């Protein structure tokens, strides 16, 4: 009886228009599909490979390093130059620009602590390994371990925080890894706030009709497509709106004349060759359990041209979109899935899942309204000042 009542209440609260092709999807199924996109916020995943992951001194050190252009070889670029804090930690460009133009769009680092793989190709298996990569990349910060160790040594505040979080510095390589682990500790704190969607989702969960009614109707209709015939939530799964894995969604992987971005395929190869992966000596996880994903990930032909499913939280603030920044607006993204040519999908399996949605203009508006409702209104608030070493 209680179940029946709950289903009846859900049906009233949802008031979601059901498209003819969604007719097989009952209100109860629809409600379950909506509820699994929360609650929010979610606890950040523990990282046993980073012994200082939650250490306040590491978080403070990471924030200072994130904003500090001295970390780059010529002192001109910081992490924040591309992951702009008041730009939702992205840069607004189609493709990033470091010391030279880059191949891919700069992903936001909001909620990055919830991820399993890092970078569009998942070539890194931890947030700290991901933080090492741009420091050493010639086209990005272009530094080396000796440079980073010098910066950390010569600045009293950085040196103090380093000692408190990691103990006495051992050598340049260990200091580079400590800097990356501090950067990871800071970035893991970047959890976006609640959104209009979260208020609606929680109102449904507690059967609060008055609160649910405040969610705009267009967003509701867009949500019904998202979890229904759009099949969007199959990959944009869960509270973070990503399953954390890799897909070919028909975005060309040609990166320029004679240049192919193989995405996950080379990502796995680079991961397996990296001295900073979870199987290497820089991991603090003595149990080896954290390395399960790295040990078992499989390099197959299917991974060619696959890129990571991005989170959709704050997506409205991080245009342009896709791994190559080729789509300028959220409307363009929705239109891409509406008009998608399955012939362009390289992977056989993805083509079975991805069929053109053939949305009407109003349905495109509705999906955009839903995606915009995943925006934290405080996402562009300035960062609080990092804590000083003497206070820790």
């Amino acid at each position, binding site marked *: 009886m209680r179940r029946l009542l709950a289903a009846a209440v859900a049906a009233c609260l949802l008031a979601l228009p059901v498209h003819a092709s969604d007719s097989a999807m009952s209100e109860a199924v629809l409600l379950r599909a909506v509820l*699994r996109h929360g609650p929010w916020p979610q606890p950040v995943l523990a990282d046993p490979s980073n012994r200082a992951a939650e250490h306040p001194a590491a978080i403070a050190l990471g924030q200072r390093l994130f904003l500090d252009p001295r970390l780059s070889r010529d002192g001109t670029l910081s992490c924040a130059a591309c992951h702009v804090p008041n730009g939702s930690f992205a840069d607004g460009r189609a493709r990033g620009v470091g010391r030279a133009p880059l191949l891919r769009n700069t992903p936001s680092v909001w909620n990055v602590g919830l991820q399993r793989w890092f970078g569009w190709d998942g070539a890194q298996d931890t947030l700290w390994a991901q933080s090492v990569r741009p420091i050493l990349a010639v086209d990005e910060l272009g530094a080396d371990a000796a440079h980073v160790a010098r910066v950390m040594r010569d600045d009293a505040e950085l040196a103090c925080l380093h000692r408190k979080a990691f103990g006495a510095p051992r050598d340049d390589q260990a200091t580079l890894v400590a800097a990356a682990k501090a950067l990871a500790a800071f970035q893991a704190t970047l959890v976006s706030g609640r959104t209009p969607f979260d208020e609606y989702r929680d109102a449904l969960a507690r059967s609060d009709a008055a609160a649910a009614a405040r969610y705009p109707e267009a967003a509701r209709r867009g949500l019904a497509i998202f979890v229904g015939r759009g099949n969007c939530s199959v990959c944009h799964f869960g509270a973070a709106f990503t399953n*954390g894995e890799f897909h070919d969604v028909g975005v060309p992987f040609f990166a320029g004349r004679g240049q192919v971005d193989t995405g996950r395929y080379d990502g796995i190869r680079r991961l397996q060759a990296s001295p900073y992966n979870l199987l290497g000596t820089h991991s603090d996880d003595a149990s080896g359990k954290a390395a399960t*994903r790295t*040990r*078992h*990930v*499989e390099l197959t032909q299917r991974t060619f041209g696959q890129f990571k499913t991005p989170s959709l939280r704050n997506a409205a603030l991080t245009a342009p979109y896709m791994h190559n920044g080729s789509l300028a607006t959220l409307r363009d993204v929705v239109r891409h899935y509406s008009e998608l040519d399955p012939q362009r999908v390289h*992977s056989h*399996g*993805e083509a079975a899942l991805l069929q053109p949605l053939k949305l009407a203009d109003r349905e495109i508006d509705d999906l955009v309204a839903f995606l915009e409702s995943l925006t934290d209104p405080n996402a562009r608030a300035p960062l609080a000042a990092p804590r000083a070493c003497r206070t820790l």
Partner: protein
Amino acid sequence: MRRLLAAAALAAAALAPVSFASACELPADFGARAETLALALAYRPVPAPIVVGKHFAVDVAVCAKAGAPAPVALRVDAQMPEHRHGMNYRAQVKPQGPGRWRAEGLMFHMPGRWQFVFDVESGGRHERLVHDYRLE
């Protein structure tokens, strides 16, 4: 002909009723079961239930039915038949004693209908058993 035989074995494994006349006992707490004419198999995910995007292991027990040769090796995989793709991870199978194995490193990265695929070697032959698993 080989393909036909394999398909027949597959169909038998998928559709066979769960009534075992085994030479060994399958653990009562391994809820999911499948069988062929010669083999009976039970498994349980660890931890259970399986969660989208979380790695898990599978404990597997295989018994030969009366007169059939004992199972000696096992391979475990999984696929999404409707999506026509498998997992992004390769399971590693470790023996846990006669007729017992643990497969580690599996991960289902999407909700929907998954299908476990167990390839069992016994008496110099390979038999395939499949079992559906619906993941919400």
